[in-house]
Every structure is written in C-alpha cells, then in structure tokens.
C-alpha cells in the first residue's frame, strides 16, 4: 500500500507537468486550429531561463518562476507575430512546418549557447517527510499544488472573464467574431502568452525536480504532452489536464507493476485503444466541417 501511494505521488508529479505543457498545445489549437510544435522547446527555454535567473541573478523561487514565465510569454508572442501570423491564411501544413522549424531554431540557438548539459541551482529546500513509509518532498507538494493552482486559474480566466469569452468566441468562428468588435490579434497574442507561460512554469518546476537540463529536453516531453492533449480532446482545456494526468499515471504505474521495459509500449497501446473508442479524445467534440 505504501508502495502504491509512493508511486501515486510520483504519478501526480509527472502528470501535473504533462498537463501544464498539454494546456499550451490545446489552447493554441483551440484558437488557431494549429499545432504549435515549438511548444516543447518553449518549455525547454523556460527551464533555461530558470537556470540563468537562478545562477546569475540569484533570485529566490517565486521571482524566478514569474520572470521565466514572463520571458517565455514574450518569446511566445513574438514567435506568433513573426512566424505564425503571416501564415494564418496559408494551408495548415505550412504553419505546422513553420512551428517545427521554430522548434529546431530554438534548440539550435540554445545548443550554441549551452553545448553542455547544465546543472540548475536548487531554489527550494530539499526537505522531505516520511509519513507511514511514504516519502513526500516539499518540491513534490509545490509542483503538484502550483500546477493545480495554475490550471484552476486558467479555467477561471477562460470561463469567467471577458478575455476568456473572447477566446472561446474566436475559437468558435474566426471570421465573424472580429466583426463584432473583438480584437482578433490581441486575443490570439494573449492566448499565446498564457499558453507559453504555462509551459515555462512547467519548465521551471521540471528543472527543479530534475536539475540537469539540455537543449533537447523539450523534444520527448513535448511529444508526450501533445499526446496528452490529443487524448484529452485537443482544443479542450479540461481535456488537456485530464490527458496529462492519465499519461503520467499510466507511465508510472506500468513501471511500478510490470517490467519497466514495457512502459512506452503499454502506455501508448492504451492511448491508441482509447482513441479508437473516443476518436476526438475524452472531452473532445467532433467539429463538423463548415463548407
């Protein structure tokens, strides 16, 4: 039982990271029906911002987190402005290729600056408590609570504020809504800012939990978060959260109770089976093609 609880805690930690990153994919898809494949690399940039701020400015955790989120949000908005906006009317495939290109650009730039893996300074104390055989660290609690807090905040913004209403309206119809006076470009920029800053928050927490970072760290985890978003129903914010936790739990629990070599095989087979029965994801709705 202790063993199960310990693994459940591991699953919650990994799941909340996946969920945070998955939100970035799903928000951009929801509003632009475009998959921002550079998102995993923005997560990586978030981790590097954390490393730079913690190493050179020596700020504590909260300012480091906020500064990294802000920096990556600016970068996200800039990427949208420079790389994606000119292609908004272009075939969707061009935008996807551009996103992949932006991702590779980010990796390569980071590789030039940091050719070696870097060690991120610990910003949080290393305390851990053992409660009845289960070891809980402060870091795990912070990661899980902060992720859940950010997700609740996002859910509130999207459902209860004017910006959120505008986002949902644009995702419903990009042609008509601007005619009603909704500033299309501003709302898209805000969406990018929020989505990428959540990715950066995940990057900061990830670099605290796993403090060796390298420019390729976003590739694998980006793919996994993207898969989480698809499983949850891409375009659906609550779906992305659920998808992230499902993938995290499956990955950890397969290792916990089967030979760890089966992890990816079992995890992705399960996800494929799930998509057979729910092709639009768990919370996704089929969108009829408008002619």
């Amino acid at each position, binding site marked *: 039982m202790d063993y199960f609880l310990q693994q459940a805690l591991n699953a919650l930690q990994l799941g909340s990271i996946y969920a945070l990153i998955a939100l970035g994919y799903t928000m951009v898809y929801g509003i632009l029906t475009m998959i921002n494949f550079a998102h995993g690399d923005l997560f990586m940039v978030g981790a590097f911002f954390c490393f730079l701020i913690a190493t050179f400015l020596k700020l504590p955790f909260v300012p480091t987190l906020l500064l990294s989120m802000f920096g990556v949000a600016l970068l996200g908005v800039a990427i949208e402005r420079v790389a994606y906006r000119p292609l908004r009317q272009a075939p969707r495939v061009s935008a996807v290729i551009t996103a992949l290109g932006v991702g590779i650009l980010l990796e390569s730039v980071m590789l030039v600056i940091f050719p070696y893996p870097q060690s991120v300074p610990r910003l949080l104390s290393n305390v851990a408590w053992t409660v009845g055989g289960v070891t809980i660290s402060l870091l795990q609690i912070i990661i899980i609570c902060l992720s859940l807090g950010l997700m609740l905040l996002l859910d509130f913004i999207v459902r209860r504020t004017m910006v959120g209403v505008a986002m949902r309206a644009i995702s419903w119809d990009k042609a008509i809504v601007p005619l009603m006076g909704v500033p299309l470009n501003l709302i898209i920029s805000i969406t990018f800012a929020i989505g990428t800053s959540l990715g950066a928050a995940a990057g900061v927490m990830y670099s605290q*939990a796993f403090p060796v970072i390298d420019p390729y760290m976003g590739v*694998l985890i980006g793919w996994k978060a993207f898969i989480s978003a698809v499983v949850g129903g891409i375009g659906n914010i609550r779906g992305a959260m659920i998808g992230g936790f499902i993938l995290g739990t499956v990955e950890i*629990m397969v290792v916990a109770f089967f*030979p760890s070599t089966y992890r990816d095989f079992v995890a992705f087979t399960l996800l494929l089976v799930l998509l057979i029965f729910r092709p639009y994801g768990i919370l996704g709705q089929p969108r009829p093609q408008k002619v």
Partner: protein
Amino acid sequence: MKKGLLLFSLLCVVSLLLSACSGASSGGDVIKVGGIGELTGDIPAVGASFKNAAEMAVADINNAGGLEVGGKKYQIQLIIEDNAGKTDQSASAAQKLITQNNVVAIIGPNASRYAIPAAEIAESEKVVLISPWSTNPKTTLVGDTDQPKKYVFRACFIDPFQGRVVAKFAMDNLGAKKAAVLYDVASDYNKGIAEFFKQTFEEIGGQVVAYETYTTGDKDFTAQMTKIKDTDPDVIFLPNYYSEVPLQVQQARRLGITVPFLGSDSWGSGELITLCGAECEGYYFSTHYAADNASPVAVKFIEAYKAKYGSTPDDVAALTYDAFGLLWQALQTAGKVDRQAVRDAMAKIPNYDGVTGKMQFQEGSGDPIKSAVILQIKDGRFVFFANAEP
C-alpha cells in the same frame, strides 16, 4: 583554324594532367587521418575531450617533423567530423571521410551507439577504424554472424570485462549480496554492460533483485527508483552516461535510498562532478586509467595535456591519444601509406605502451588485451581505488 582548336584542346588536356600530377605529388608528404567525435548532441564533453586529444596527438607528430613511414617523413592532416550525437550522422561521416577525404584510417566515434554504425561502413569499405572509447563487443563484430570484423579496432577494454570487474568488486570489496540495476534500454552500451554485470553477479552467487530500464531522454526515474527501493538492494549499478547519472542519484537519494552506487567508464567525465555536486561523493566506477596512479608515459601525457588545455585529461582523452599512438605504430610497421597494409600491421601489434597501460593485439580480434582500474569519487575528484587485471 581547326588545327588551332586541336592544339588548344591538347594544351588543356596536358595542363589538366600536369596539375593532377602535381596535386598528387604534393599530397604525397601528407597522411590524411579522419576523426569522428560527438562534438554536439547529448554527450558533448566526450567529443570535446576527443578533439583536444586528437589535435594534441597530431600536433606532437607534426611538430617533431612528421611521422617516418618507410624511410620518408610525412606530415599528418587531421579531418574531424561531428556526428552530432546521431547514429545516422556517424555513418555518413565515416562514408564522407573514406570516399571524399580519402583518409588512410578513422579514429572514433567514441560512444558505442555511434561507433557501431560507423564501424559497419569502415568494414565494408575496408578502411581501418579505431574507436577510442566504445566498449560494446558488437563494435568489432560483424552484425549478423558475430565473427570479428577485420578492419575495426579499439583502444579500450570491452563491456563483458568491465561488467565482470564491477560485479566482482561489488561482491568482494563492498560485500554486496543483492544488487539493483537501472539502465538505458535504448542504448547499446548501457544495455550490454548491464547484461554482463547481471550474468557475472549471479554466477558468483549474488542476486539481482531489480533490473529496471528507461529510454534515452527520460529525466523522471522516480517510478523505477521507488521500485528499486522496495527490493532493498545492497548496491545499485548505473551503467549510464554522465549526464543522466546525477539525476538518477539525486532522485534515489530524495526517496531515501542510502546504499552505494556503482558505475562504469561512462561516469569518467569531470562533468559528472559538476552536475552531481556532493551527491555522488564516495561512489565507485570502473574505468581505463587513473590520472593519479599513472605510468611514466601517462605522466608525460597528463602534464602536456594540462599545459595545453588547463584540465586533467579524462579517459576519453587518454584513450583517444592511445588510439592515435596505435595508428602511428601500425603505419610505421606497415612501412607504407596503404589502407590494407595498415590494417595488417594493426591486427598484430605485439606490445604498445600507452597512456592507459600496456596493450596487445592478436589476429582474429579487434579488442586489445589490457587491464582496468576502479576509481572512487572523493572530495570532488576521481581517486584511484583498485586495479583489475584481465
């Protein structure tokens, strides 16, 4: 008019021939040697050490007036290609060096997962390839028959030997009865050495209680470490690269695991200590040589390397220097700059006194006969702990 044209074209042909001849004769005093290193990608520290030692080995020869082969002094031209930490780029780099740059031999790549594809190319093109650091047996074996390759050699010992050494060390020196292993299932090196460790440890009466895997790029090992903790081992073996080991050790310690960790030669980069800090203190790993317990040849190399690059050479640098040393000896024995002759000389080097110890090659295997050492991490340095004979 027609005659003029004929004369002109004749002149052209003659001048072309002449220039081709002069090109060949000026190239005659130069031996081209190729190098393939992991300059970028997941283990750039390995590539950097490789490049440093390679340039030093070549500069040593060129500054001394060149290498005497068959009574003639040759300058060495080194062409280093980056494989970017990718298997396909390793193979294409080998192809390029052989066909376009026309090198006499290739040194590198270092990590087994990149050395194996490059070795396949070298073998099929009949060009000598010496990997300094690839310890997986497959590097010098033909893929489907397990017969030895004819053109591929290495300067280091192989994984079965290293797996045996660490397994015996765990049992004899640390008194371990139960061992756990965590390794990267997607990498030839890690997988090979983990298997040989398990085999030997069980043969000598130990028990491998957990045998867990992950794939390259993973950073979250908490599930595997929780599982390992549950089996209560005496020692944990991590035959993984220096960029991953710190994360594995840190996560294990955070879960309350206190038993010692053991590693293999992939730990032997100064980066390990930078990334791991005090958390890897006191752990052991097997490797090729100990900088603080060196032979006179090694001391000379270490001093020169320190003077040039300002750091102690790691095992990659030492083995790279030895790989070039082996090539110089093979060239001299061959007496001519010819790929086949170099291969024949290389295959039976009777005794080479290198930085990483004495080596011997016998026809029928590309692996040298040599010994290993066990190092301990102490006060942020690698310290000699024990010798391990073959």
